[in-house]
């Protein structure tokens, strides 16, 4: 059961988060100062929000949240399993749509969007089929690739950074709260972690904090590089980090934008595979008689079909579904539920 190491868990959680940061941060039409404050506040909230899951892990280190729920009450357990699978489908659907949008904007006339998301879905299915270890090991290499791309872009743009591009603004609470909400709706680690913690060999609690810290560091780094280099172009830039690539020039490669593309694809496919996997684990906990790979196929097809419907209409974003619904699911499944099982009746509190 204990298959993945502390480092691998950090990488998995980090990569599952960094896709949005890489793609959209700093957000267009939004004040960077507010965003930076928003990131800090949301990370602080995230640190608090993971406490119930960590306590749950300490109490049941070998059972994931679905198993805990299933053992307490079969019907409620099944409900929770389905909810997890639904949340995973929503997250995959959102990711595929965003990825499709990213490709649609950055490389138009390249491939039809449905092929793009289809290819990602197929490769993710294959990865999920191979299991958590294969994903974790691939994630290690994808992480290395991401860091390398980041370093190369930073090095290529080093001379083009200027502090005069930094313009502060007085942050308004309204904007900050908007950013915090926006950022928290991306906190999908809270769906991954309760399912995946039985697989980690050691220091599960620390791994999520480390992943959050790493995320915050990279979000700051990406934001600062974008601000220092692009200046007020950020106001009209849809994908700032990617736009760095169109500006960066090296002696070997004229433009780094397409060079950055692999980092996006690797991260997107790892994240999709992870959510396919947790949906499979959740459903096979609830419905033990059915083969787990059947669920995997169902989840993949469902997520792909949902995204396909949106992508074919070129509808890339659904604000209620992408933010509010996922946010509520994260809150219920990642915070409230562990809290209930931690302090519920009949459990002895184990503290370390």
């Amino acid at each position: 059961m204990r298959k993945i190491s502390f480092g691998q868990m950090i990488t998995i959680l980090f990569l599952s988060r960094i896709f949005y940061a890489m793609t959209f941060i700093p957000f267009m039409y939004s004040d960077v100062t507010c965003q930076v404050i928003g990131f800090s506040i949301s990370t602080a909230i995230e640190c608090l929000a993971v406490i119930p899951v960590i306590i749950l892990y300490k109490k049941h280190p070998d059972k994931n949240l679905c198993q805990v729920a299933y053992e307490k009450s079969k019907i409620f357990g099944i409900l929770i399993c389905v909810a997890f699978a639904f949340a995973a489908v929503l997250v995959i659907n959102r990711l595929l749509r965003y990825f499709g949008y990213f490709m649609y904007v950055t490389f138009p006339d390249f491939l039809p969007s449905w092929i793009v998301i289809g290819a990602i879905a197929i490769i993710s299915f294959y990865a999920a089929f191979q299991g958590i270890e294969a994903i974790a090991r691939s994630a290690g290499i994808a992480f290395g690739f991401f860091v390398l791309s980041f370093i190369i872009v930073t090095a290529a743009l080093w001379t083009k950074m200027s502090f005069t591009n930094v313009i502060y603004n007085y942050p308004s609470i309204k904007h900050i709260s908007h950013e915090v909400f926006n950022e928290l709706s991306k906190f999908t680690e809270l769906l991954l972690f309760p399912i995946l913690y039985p697989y980690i060999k050691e220091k599960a609690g620390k791994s999520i904090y480390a992943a959050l810290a790493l995320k915050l560091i990279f979000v700051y780094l990406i934001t600062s590089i974008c601000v220092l280099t692009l200046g007020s172009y950020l106001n009209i830039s849809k994908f700032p980090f990617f736009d760095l690539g169109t500006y960066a020039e090296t002696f070997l490669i004229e433009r780094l934008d397409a060079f950055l593309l692999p980092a996006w694809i690797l991260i997107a496919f790892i994240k999709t595979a992870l959510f396919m996997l947790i949906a499979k684990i959740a459903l096979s906990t609830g419905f033990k008689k059915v083969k787990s790979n059947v669920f995997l196929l169902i989840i993949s097809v469902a997520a792909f079909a949902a995204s396909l419907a949106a992508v074919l209409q070129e509808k890339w974003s659904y604000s209620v579904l992408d933010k509010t619904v996922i946010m509520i699911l994260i809150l219920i499944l990642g915070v409230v539920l562990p809290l209930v099982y931690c302090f519920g009746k009949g459990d002895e509190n184990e503290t370390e």
Partner: protein
Amino acid sequence: MKQNRIILKRFSIITICVLFIFSLCSCNSTGRYAKRDIDEKIIVHALGIDMTKDGKFEVTLQMLAQQGSGSNTPIDPSKPNSASVSQIADTIPAAIERCETDLGKKAFLGHSELILLGKNVEDLNPIFDFALNAEGISLGIFMAYTDVTAKEILNIKITSGTYSAEVLKEIFEESVKNGTSTECELIRHIDNIENTNGVTVMPIIKKIKDDKKSSDEKENSSSEENFGESKSDDSNVKSENEKVKSESSEDSQSESSSKSEESSSKSEESSSKSEESSSKSEESSSKSEGGSGGGEESGSGGGSSEEAEVTAFYIDGAVIIKNKKPQSVMTRDEIIGLSFLNNGIAEQEIDAKLGDTFKPVNVGSVKKDTKVSIKNNRVAVDINLTLSYEFYKSYSEKEKKIITAKATEHIYSICNKTITKALKEEKADIFEIHSLLNHNDYTLYEEYKKNPDAILERVDINIKIDPQN
């Protein structure tokens, strides 16, 4: 049963894969997603945009037209490997599309290095819109004005370097280093326009030949900087020198270059004629290579003519753009002053007059301190420049002191000239005042955001130069 399931599973996976490959193949051959090979694309080096009298856009694409020598060298760097094509339409994309139709290929703008604007371009809004939205255009593309039409500049064939856009780009880069040009990448223009009161500065590209005619009028602005003139350079000769040299080179070239000039001027004529009938006749508009034949011949005739071709362009001054419209022209000295005030200069040759002779000294920026303070409702921006001076070894200590003083005085004066011109006359924030205010006094910055011109009126820039030997 189990076997069946496995077979079914494999079958479904294989089906998916096959369907996927087929769909890939189908989108490859036709339609929007058809893949084009590189030789089916027009590799555009530079875009020239001019306005016609009736308010239409004339777009010139300078593109690759390789001239190889033998099968092993498909590109011969000694020959001009470029051609240009122009078309007129209501919008820029439409004009480009016409160019594409003329050549039967798709324009690939991902490698274009500069956008040149003809002198009659008066509204930059459509141009910025195009540059920001066109597929593949780099954020680092250079944008500059010309004092003639962009078409004219892009039609010049050069024989050194592979194509003129490359040479132009190198000229820009070198000029930014020595302060004779401001940074003119697209993203910097956008950044300036967004942050300031809609102001940016675009350098002006000129042709040497034009300069020769009008050099008498603007002795001042002609350069200490000498493109490609290193051989006989004693550097105390100013614009007259250039004139003499170009004349002498003309002499040495004897007939060949004059022939080429003639032929190029003919080509200009023919192209200008073709402008009128361009929308109909394909040939006249698509290939305006008239000058290239002559240029080539003269290139093979002697090295001197190559030199003449290389020095075909230079950067002289810049245009202040306000609210995406050209406002006024800054001279070369004013741009050097601006560079001293803003970015610092890596090295700039300044000629200090000592008695009757000019003594060159190489000046570079070391440090720049800026302070903002408010006194008597005036915003005082104190810029403290620390400059380094490099002298010839033969200078005596006394000479060095005098030269330093003279050069400092010169720099001081050009900086003040810049301030007077840009800030006092044009109310143009090209001194990064927005950033200074933002970093130092936020309330003032907020006022600046609301009414930049009012704040700029209250700004005084005081310069202090600290020479460091």
